């Protein structure tokens, strides 16, 4: 187990290092002079030079890369050119919205998908199954941002249950905060729940056809007992993989959904960064997003090993 975890950790750390090189290269090397790029065509050479000094762009490329990585490791993400504040502070502020949103959506998606997927597998080939499969088929096809607009239309404009956007801040209390995140979380969760339910259903159906289910039935377990006691845990192994992959979709989705609801999260920050050519912000936030995906991959790998005893010793 420890060996497996160490190997995965090393491999993912390598991925992280390569990812940082890629991001650094795209943002700081390809444009030539980032300072000139950020200021646009009309900037005077003096301002460009000043900004260059400001951003620490004077050194060689490897030295700058090391300084950037070293800074991030110690929590120094650089200073935003437009906001004139440390990017770390900006990110910390925005994470208070984005992280709860992604977690909220993940929880909703899992809570919806599990019973639905199990029900469909248990009622395989019957009307319930066809109904669920049809509904999830539709759920997958709906773009989350469009679904978000429809939710706003119904639950914020026609029925004044929720606000159409904005975030009161957690200072206003837990409930107003959660309420503001509810429609965005539903919009994010439903398409993902559809995918998850379908994966769970097909994984369950596949495990239900395994020999050990027949063995369990020969021991006297009922269909339901065999499903709960044996099929479910085995089916969770492929479901975990999907759950890990879904995190990156949720993260990307959250960035887009924040735009629909005007939520002050990482997504708004990064799009403002792009429009204002604030490369420091773009660079650091993308690195953070990639780090989050890789960290979740690692957690999923660990969960995988915990769920599957065959992995603990092998590899």
């Amino acid at each position, binding site marked *: 187990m420890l060996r497996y975890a160490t190997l995965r950790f090393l491999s993912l750390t390598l991925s992280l290092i390569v990812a940082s090189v890629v991001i650094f290269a795209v943002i700081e090397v390809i444009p030539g002079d980032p300072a000139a790029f950020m200021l646009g065509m009309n900037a005077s050479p003096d301002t460009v030079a000043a900004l260059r000094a400001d951003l620490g762009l004077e050194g060689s490329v490897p030295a700058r890369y090391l300084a950037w990585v070293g800074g991030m490791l110690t929590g120094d993400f650089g200073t935003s050119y437009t906001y004139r504040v440390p990017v770390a502070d900006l990110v910390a502020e925005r994470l208070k919205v984005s992280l709860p949103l992604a977690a909220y959506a993940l929880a909703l998606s899992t809570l919806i998908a599990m019973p639905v997927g199990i029900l469909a597998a248990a009622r395989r080939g019957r009307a319930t199954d066809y109904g669920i499969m049809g509904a999830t088929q539709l759920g997958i096809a709906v773009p989350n941002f469009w679904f978000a607009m429809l939710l706003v239309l119904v639950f914020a404009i026609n029925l004044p249950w929720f606000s159409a956007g904005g975030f009161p801040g957690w200072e206003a209390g837990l409930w107003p905060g959660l309420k503001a995140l509810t429609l965005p979380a539903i919009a994010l969760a439903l398409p993902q729940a559809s995918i998850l339910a379908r994966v769970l259903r097909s994984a369950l159906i596949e495990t239900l056809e395994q020999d*050990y289910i027949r*063995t369990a039935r020969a*021991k006297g377990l009922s269909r339901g007992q065999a499903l709960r006691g044996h099929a479910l845990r085995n089916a969770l192994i492929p479901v975990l993989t999907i759950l890990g992959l879904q995190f990156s979709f949720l993260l990307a989705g959250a960035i887009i959904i924040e735009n629909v609801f005007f939520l002050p999260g990482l997504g708004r920050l990064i799009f403002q960064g792009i429009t204002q050519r604030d490369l420091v912000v773009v660079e650091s936030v993308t690195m953070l997003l990639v780090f989050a995906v890789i960290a979740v991959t690692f957690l999923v790998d660990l969960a995988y090993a915990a769920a*599957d*005893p065959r992995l603990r010793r092998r590899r």
Partner: protein
Amino acid sequence: MIEVTDLTLGIHGTPILRDVSFDIRPGEVFGVVGESGSGKSLTALSLMQLLPEGAQTSGRAIFDDIDLLTQSERRMCALRGAEIGMIFQEPMTALNPVQTIGDQVAETLLVHGKAGRAEATQIAAERLARVGLPPEKVPLSRYPHELSGGQRQRVAIAMAIALRPRLLIADEPTTALDVTTQAQILALLKGLVTDEGMSLMLITHDLAVVAGMADRIVVMQAGQIVESGPTARVFQALSHPYTRQLFAASDHQPQRQPHVTDDPHLQMQGAVRDYHLPRRSLFGKAPTFRAVNDVTFTLRRGESLGLVGESGSGKSTLARAVLGLEPLQAGRILLDGAPVRAGDPRMQVVFQDPYGSFNPRHRVARLVAEPFHTMGHPHDADARIAEALTDVGLTPSDADKYIHEFSGGQRQRIAIARALITRPELIVLDEAVSALDVSVRANVLDLLADLQARYGLSYLFITHDLQVVRAITDRVLVMQAGRIVEEGPTERVLSAPEHPYTRDLIAAAPAIPAEWRNHA
């Protein structure tokens, strides 16, 4: 104890079983024999009411005084595992891979409410010890993947007998196991019948297995019982033609006229093949596993040489090395004095699996012609494909068909046609008849003997089955753990084995008693 009358089964309207009637008495071993597709497994699943969807049964199966075929699902759940236990063929997949063996055995007790958790674990340990897995050697906390096939089958048995059922159904319980493991499992089952007084319904394709185990047997063919009675009487009388055919095929000896020369054809000299195992520590050297350990032998031109061994003995690795597909760490393999290489038209191969041996997207003509690859397609390729197909008892028009249109036995003939196409001198047969039913196997063995005589072929016959060795080889090598432990003329090795391992192998192989064979 159980009386089945006129059991008839259809699945989605297709008739599977017709008027199957038999009874099993308390404390006896009841054998059900038949080839694949005879309906023997579905008979057992009917009794358990574990049939696939769309199954329709009629008739009666009276167990004590209740009819198993009409019981509610709830009532059947109470019966399964408690009154009737069942084990299956494939021990590698029959256990839940993510649950410990202790929990899986204890579950039988828990699900029937016969014990609390602590007591169930206690009883599970006892039952596992009874089947030969004492907790001090094999802890309850083991997972299935940590056990061998034989050990897993023991766990499956422990699960099935945890509540001391009165009937244990064993569906081909040893077919997937090595012969020495098979003997141990059969002995265990027999011991359980004696000690626990339960009845055993033993389903198998192997006449020799039932001959040594069953008190009474039924023979099934195409969903019907064609013969039944006490084992000795059935074997001695062989009143039904199908039983006679099955019996004759089970130790069929093809007519052979070997023309063995002194000319060394294939020579293996001190061959060593190591595999790297996964590293144990992060930076340590990867440990190696020696699959083939200093093997030396000579196959003479025109000879049929058997190589016999159990799974893991290294015989398949050796076969691939002979074919030039495995690099050697030491030693060499020579064909006509030159190192072997893949793509040599003088040497061809036939594999075990008649289903996985062909690309399903190509027609037979292309499949059979594949060995032409290195020598280039001859101008008379079509004629030679037709000739090869005719040689193996098929027709030239079969060349235009796809492989799924053929039965297992026919596919194996096509595999032989593919091996003949380059007019080779040596054919490696890697378990080439192991997956076939006995009657089909007998026909393929005849074909192989005939082809050898006609074309003066040399055979390297790799198998786990001593019956096959006896039928088709002149000389035999016995392989154990990567080494050749015994070598000699087949007759001599089988009748007077010298190495203890060979003796074990021969002793473990089930056999039909000689006195039952007189009429054959």
